[in-house]
């Protein structure tokens, strides 16, 4: 792990660089897909992403706990060993909007993304892989969200 001081001074330089160019070096960023993040169902989401009908697949894995001690932080991972993955998505079925995170992967990273999401209640959680050949594959797991502590 790098020294924190170095990290700070380095990032200050970087920030200065970015400020002068006004651009991130070499980043062609897709515009934020607001429609996808408004989608209430998996079907709506696929429409917003311009993707086909998803099918369950053993080649896609979801990592999530059986029980979450608190819904504010639920660790979720999506991965697949398949080649030709374009996007990986993490969905929570019963959240007000189903999509939590959408990753655009390149050949320079494993198709294996981990993050943490909020869950309002117990729900199915999905890892979805959108493939270069148009296939949409998913894995699903139920996560129980428990009430904890004194509750006051």
């Amino acid at each position, binding site marked *: 792990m790098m020294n*924190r001081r170095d990290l700070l001074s380095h990032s200050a330089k970087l920030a200065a660089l970015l400020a002068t160019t006004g651009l991130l070096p070499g980043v062609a960023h897709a515009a934020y897909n607001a429609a996808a993040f408004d989608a209430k169902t998996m079907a709506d989401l696929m429409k917003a992403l311009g993707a086909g009908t998803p099918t369950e697949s053993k080649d896609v894995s979801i990592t999530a706990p059986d029980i979450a001690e608190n819904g504010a932080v639920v660790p979720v991972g999506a991965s697949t060993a398949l080649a030709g993955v374009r996007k990986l998505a993490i969905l929570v079925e019963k959240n007000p909007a189903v999509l939590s995170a959408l990753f655009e992967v390149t050949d320079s990273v494993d198709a294996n993304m981990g993050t*943490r999401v909020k869950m309002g209640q117990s729900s199915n959680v999905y890892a979805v892989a959108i493939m270069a050949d148009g296939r949409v594959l998913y894995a699903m797991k139920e996560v129980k969200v428990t009430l904890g502590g004194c509750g006051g």
Partner: protein
Amino acid sequence: MKFIPLLAATAALLACGAVVSQTKTASDGIAEYRKMLEDGNPAELFEAKGEDLWKTARGPKKASLQACNLGLGPGVVKGAFVQLPRWFADTGRVQDLESRLLTCMETLQGFNAAEIAKTGFDKGEQATLTALSAWISSESRGMKMALPQAHAEERRFYELGKRAFFFRGGPMDFSCASCHGEDGKRIRLQDLPNLTKNPGDGLGFAAWPAYRVSSGEMWSMQRRLNDCYRQQRFPYPGYASDLTIALGVYMGVNAQGAQSIAPALKR
């Protein structure tokens, strides 16, 4: 009402229904969840901030805290956390980490300690204290709790803290001991450390400050105690008041030898 005592006995006999095997599964599930969160504790973000705040010249006197004596000599941070609260000759008081930081912020940096003590958590210089305690505690990570008890005041505070721990009051008759006085108890699915003795490495006093997952906040020990009193339905305890410091001495001395994992990650 004559029937009642007899029935009470019957009821007591019947009271211990079976706790189903599902419990074990739930506890295992929680353990698995906690393990998944171990790597990447957001407390790190506060540690980084605290280290910066310690070293930055701030306050009316434009001074850093690097000359602050946390008990092991001016500027010595490593190992200081596991020996607090302790007696300080310059103030003539037993002080916990946050009380001591207030002293340093006042004497070295020229802040008004009483004003900061009155400020709400996470606001203004209180946010500074939270970050500082996160970093200072992290500098003793893995060390064993070793509160000194050589000074008479330290021993007196232990006795006062013990009394505070068992003090029942409020509309629900709660004391600290209501929840933390026995082994193997839980509130909901959360294990309750028995704080009347050494509850083990990284439990209870040896786990705070901690990042609270439920609120997404960094909590210092003072904040932890403040919320315990809130949940006990007590009135509002003064920040770094002698009562809270005495409780710290009681829990810290009981935890003697326990390894500190602060700043930890909590529900």
